[in-house]
């Protein structure tokens, strides 16, 4: 059973917290492809946040290819793409470069960077959910 937690006292936006936790749960396999997740209305109600907040998180994840939103069938986790088209790949590699550059600029050494990336990949493979998701 997966749950997500939001904390309105945190500096990052609530929609970003929702999106980040769902992203981690999907990437780690805790939420398998085809799994139905609560509608915008139900998740907003249970979390006590506005409909727009959850809708914004869902739209973001839909654009990133994590969710499929259909009016009648509801919201489901999308299957991982079999192959990535060149443009999408270039965009994501660009994102990664920017993050790596920022980490380097923040003082992280090459070895430390490699360890961090390896840990994060291991987390995904182990299906631990990484940060955010409250397993339970």
């Amino acid at each position, binding site marked *: *059973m*997966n*749950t*997500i*937690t*939001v*904390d*309105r*006292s945190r500096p990052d936006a609530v929609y970003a917290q929702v999106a980040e936790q769902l992203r981690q*749960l999907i990437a780690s396999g805790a*939420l398998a492809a085809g799994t*139905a*997740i*609560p*509608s915008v*209305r*139900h*998740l*907003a*109600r*249970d*979390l*006590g*946040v*506005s*409909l727009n907040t959850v809708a914004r998180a869902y739209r973001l994840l839909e654009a990133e290819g994590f969710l499929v939103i259909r009016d009648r069938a*509801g919201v489901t986790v999308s299957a991982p793409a079999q192959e990535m088209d060149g443009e999408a790949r270039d965009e994501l590699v660009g994102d990664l470069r920017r993050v790596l550059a920022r980490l380097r600029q923040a003082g992280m050494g090459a070895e430390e960077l490699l360890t961090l990336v390896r840990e994060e990949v291991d987390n995904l493979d182990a299906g631990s959910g990484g940060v955010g998701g*409250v*397993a*339970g």
Partner: protein
Amino acid sequence: MNEEAAVVMGFFTFRVFLVGAIMVAFPRIARKGLLFGTYLGEEQAAGPARRRLLRTWDMGTALIMLVALIVGWSIGFSGRWIPGNFIGTAVLVTPFVPLYFWMHGKVRGLAPAVAMEPAGRSAASLQVDEGHGGGFALFALVVCLVASTTLIGYAIVSFRTMPGRIPTLANLWGYGDALTEKSLVSVVLIPAYNLVFAPFFAVMGLLVAQSKRSIRGGSEGGSTRAQDTFRVAVSHIFAAAGLFLCLFLAVASIDMIWIWQGRAESLSGIAIGGAAVATILVLGGGLFRIMWLGQGGARLETGSPDAPLTGGLADNARWILGVLYVDRTDPAIMVEARWGIGYTMNLGNRVAQVLLTVFAAALLGLALLTLAEIGVFA
């Protein structure tokens, strides 16, 4: 004491013991961590303070029951059994309000001493909410609306065939009482009550089926399942209450029209009695079941019962006196109650405010019409 007085006072005595038993049960069936409408945290709410407070509550309940019985029966034995029933019931119910607030205040005094979940933090299950129970409630709503509007039509159509003076009430044995000049208002009053009250219960059933799920983290889904089971049970009890009330008032409406037309002498004892017995059995059974499940399915919760409650239930800032939930930013219309059994409305929600206003206005309108019909304003 005549037979009618014995029946009324017998019901009064039963009511005293029923209310007493429910009040004793309330703090014991609450979700872990909650005590008299305040979230204290799982450890603190189960500690020695809890035992002390429960003892005080039990003694207060026993005292209230005793005083209510003495007052009710004293007035009843003096021959005034109707005032005895009403005053005894008032003496039974009213003192629980200050007693609860006193207990709530004592628990609030304990709350700042413990580490509470940060305000504004909430959790939700990613299990899809099927909204079970809503189908039955929707069925009840449709039946209640169709039946009550049909009966209003039947009363209006039958108006011409009624005599000039008709009884406005029926006594305990179902015979017409309080003759007055007939009017269109008086003949549609009972089905109009049906149109307001029965659908109200069905709508409550619908809203409960879609109520917010306040879960306990780390419970392997046990908290969500427990809450869902409880929610279905409460939704069904509201829907069943709507249907039975509709049935009861529909039978009464038809019987009263037949009495007015001279086709019957009294309300149909078998129909009314049958409806009453079925109502008591079904609603009594439903009430017993939800008490057995515990508030929010507290007795079904498995996994990690010491994990903290989440969401609105754990946030003391969103609750006034532990009974009123007010949060304008929360889109939930119905939330699990902190005190007692069942659900309560989010008074900060616009839809909840509109629903309560419409119901209160309908109730006030019916009350004024009834008082006008029995000549209070004459």
